[in-house]
């Protein structure tokens, strides 16, 4: 039973990060019908921006502000940095290709992904960087927490899940209750009709990228708070984010959240109960099964192509 609780806690933590990444994919796909391969690398850049800001604020050994403030500042910095990066990528790598055949922005995205990962390696080297949250909080974030049965859920994981939840609620609010959100939904339904209704597509797209990339930045910080980050994590994170978005139904925001959590659970339980080695394989099989039998995912709409 303890194992189950522990694995569930792990699953929630993992799933929250995956959900945040998947949301970025879903948002961009909904509006542009483009799978942004570079998104995983934006996530990686976010974790490094967080690391840089952490060093600027004194590093994990001698922080100049209290731990709470530090985490908030680092997250906000990463979100802002990634949002800017997302805007730049959209403006220079995707916008010129908006009217090109579908394959063109996909390949451009591959190029951006490759470029980002190797640029970060050029600038920061290949060594893993750790936020060292343990030292930062003198162990508090790791050792104190809520007790469920015999399992102690540390504060750090609670923070991860809560931040992700808050951000998702904020996103839901933005998309469903504001004008810009309405414009986003309209564009994702039918871009041409939206233009005719007076929606400024360029602004909507920029806004979408800002949102998606900011979420990726937050995910990067949440991720790096617990484990060391490296320049090579972008690729795998991207794959997992795709999987989550597709399982949940690409183009659907609640779908991305559900998909992320589902993926976290699948991975955690597979590693815990079946085998750590083949857990990747199991996750892929789930994805393939979805794509064959239910390509619209859990909560997506069945895609009817107009001729």
């Amino acid at each position: 039973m303890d194992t189950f609780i522990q694995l569930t806690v792990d699953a929630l933590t993992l799933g929250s990060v995956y959900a945040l990444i998947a949301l970025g994919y879903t948002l961009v796909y909904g509006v542009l019908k483009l799978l942004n391969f570079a998104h995983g690398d934006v996530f990686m850049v976010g974790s490094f921006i967080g690391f840089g800001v952490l060093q600027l604020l004194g590093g994990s050994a001698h922080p100049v502000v209290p731990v709470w403030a530090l985490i908030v500042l680092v997250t906000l910095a990463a979100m802002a940095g990634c949002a800017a990066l997302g805007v730049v990528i959209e403006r220079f790598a995707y916008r010129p290709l908006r009217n090109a055949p579908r394959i063109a922005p996909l390949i451009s995205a591959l190029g951006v992904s490759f470029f980002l990962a190797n640029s970060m390696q050029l600038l920061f080297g290949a060594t893993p960087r750790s936020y060292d949250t343990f030292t930062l909080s003198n162990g508090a974030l790791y050792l104190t927490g809520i007790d469920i049965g015999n399992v102690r859920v540390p504060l750090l994981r609670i923070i991860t899940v809560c931040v992700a939840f808050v951000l998702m609620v904020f996103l839901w609010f933005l998309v469903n209750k504001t004008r810009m959100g309405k414009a986003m939904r309209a564009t994702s339904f039918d871009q041409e009709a939206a233009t005719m209704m007076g929606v400024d597509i360029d602004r909507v797209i920029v806004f979408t990228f800002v949102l998606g990339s900011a979420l990726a930045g937050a995910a990067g910080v949440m991720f790096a708070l617990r484990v060391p980050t490296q320049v090579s994590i972008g690729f795998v994170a991207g794959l997992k984010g795709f999987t989550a978005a597709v399982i949940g139904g690409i183009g659907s925001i609640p779908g991305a959240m559900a998909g992320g959590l589902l993926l976290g659970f699948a991975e955690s339980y597979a590693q815990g109960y079946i085998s750590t080695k083949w857990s990747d394989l199991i996750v892929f099989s789930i994805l393939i099964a979805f794509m064959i039998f239910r390509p619209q995912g859990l909560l997506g709409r069945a895609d009817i192509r107009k001729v």
Partner: protein
Amino acid sequence: MTDPTPHSPDDVPADGPAVGRDEWVARHDERRLARGRLLGPLEERLRRVPWWAWLVLFIALLALVPAVSGSGYVRRVAFDTVLYMLLALGLNVVVGWGGLLDLGYVAFYGFGAYAYAVLDSDKFGVHLPTLVAIPVVVALGAILGLLLGLPSRRLTGDYLAIVTLFFLQLFQTVMTNGDKAFGHNLTGGPNGILRVDPFHAFGHSLVVQHQGVFAVSYYYVAIAIFAVVFVALWLVNRSRTGRAWRSLREDPLAAEAMGMPVSWLKLMSFSFGAAVAALTGTAFAALNASVFPLTFYFTLLIIVYTMVILGGSGSQPGVVLGALIVSPVLEMLREPAKGRILFYVVLVGGALVAFRVSRRLGVIVAATVAFGFAAHAIANAVDHSWVAGEHAGGVSGALAHWVVVPAQLARWLTPVSYVGLIGMALVLTLVYGRLRVALLVPTLYLAAFVWENVMLTNPEPARYIILGLLLIVLMILRPNGLLGERRVEII
């Protein structure tokens, strides 16, 4: 009234344009002949040369490489280039002709290599003769391509890309963990399979190296394989299947409406591509006498894609040219001295192409050179250690006085100058006219600075950064690559 329909394409009816005929297209030959007294007829002559003559000439040139240089290293690079050409040809079938974004392509390459290794090594004690092993591997590769194609029939562009990318990841996982699959060591795991047999036929073995120097025989075998594959694919392209692929690429919905077996065509293109990749894999495994899982991963995929996109997807000579350019360039970029030459050649070449031979070009070159010398002199005057650094790979003469290379590069300078260069380059795309020329000069100098100080000292990521940039720029400026055809998507 004269009959408006012309009797031959070169007829121009006396009373103006005719119905059902595109004037601009019809006058193409005239324009070409008129293009210059020397160039026009030359082009006309060249156009009449049959395609196989070009192929023979190319192969002859390739075969001459070992005669030009006795270095095992050069021959090794040439061999790798021929393998890349083969890979590019195979990918061209899937992406260029079928229009399917297959991101799992190098998994077939790896499969071919592993299959050959399993069939022809000490691993299981099986030692099939090469002439049997290669066809078996190619057939298995084709079947695997078919199997991958099966779930992909209903998937459109983006989804297909993910599924194939996952297949690549899957391949990697399975090969890496294959040493503990249910207790059996199937693939050697991360250590791979060693002591793979070289190619052997009629009692003779193709030895890989003599006294450490790479043997020429493998290179010739690779060229032979290349010739066979090129001709085979060319003929397939000319056939009904090739035409069907082209129509599938242009508009799958229309193709289906026209009654073409779209699913079958997709499967065929996957299959062909996989077969070519598997064939290349056997040569790779035999030459290296070993296979390791990590070789067949994302980086290799991007390299092959760059070759195909650069050369022009859909054009066989194009992708071969793409491979011919990218492979030696990648190899040259490993060494700072050669990388430097390459950088300046590309810089000057790029300027020539962008501005043609004109006054503007002269102004830019002169200004950049002057700017550089001035910056160097100022930096020297301020603090000698700012220019006292050693150029990676050694450099002398005027260049040493042009680029600023500090003795101790401050740690913040690397990210700032790199990001600054990217920022300035992006800004350049937004401004026009005199402002653009004015900003171009410091940008070029900054580029030289970043190249010398940051990228030449880290050649590995630098090579890949250039590849990534190349992909992005190509898709934006010239998606048809060098020799591809510009396609118009009809909405």
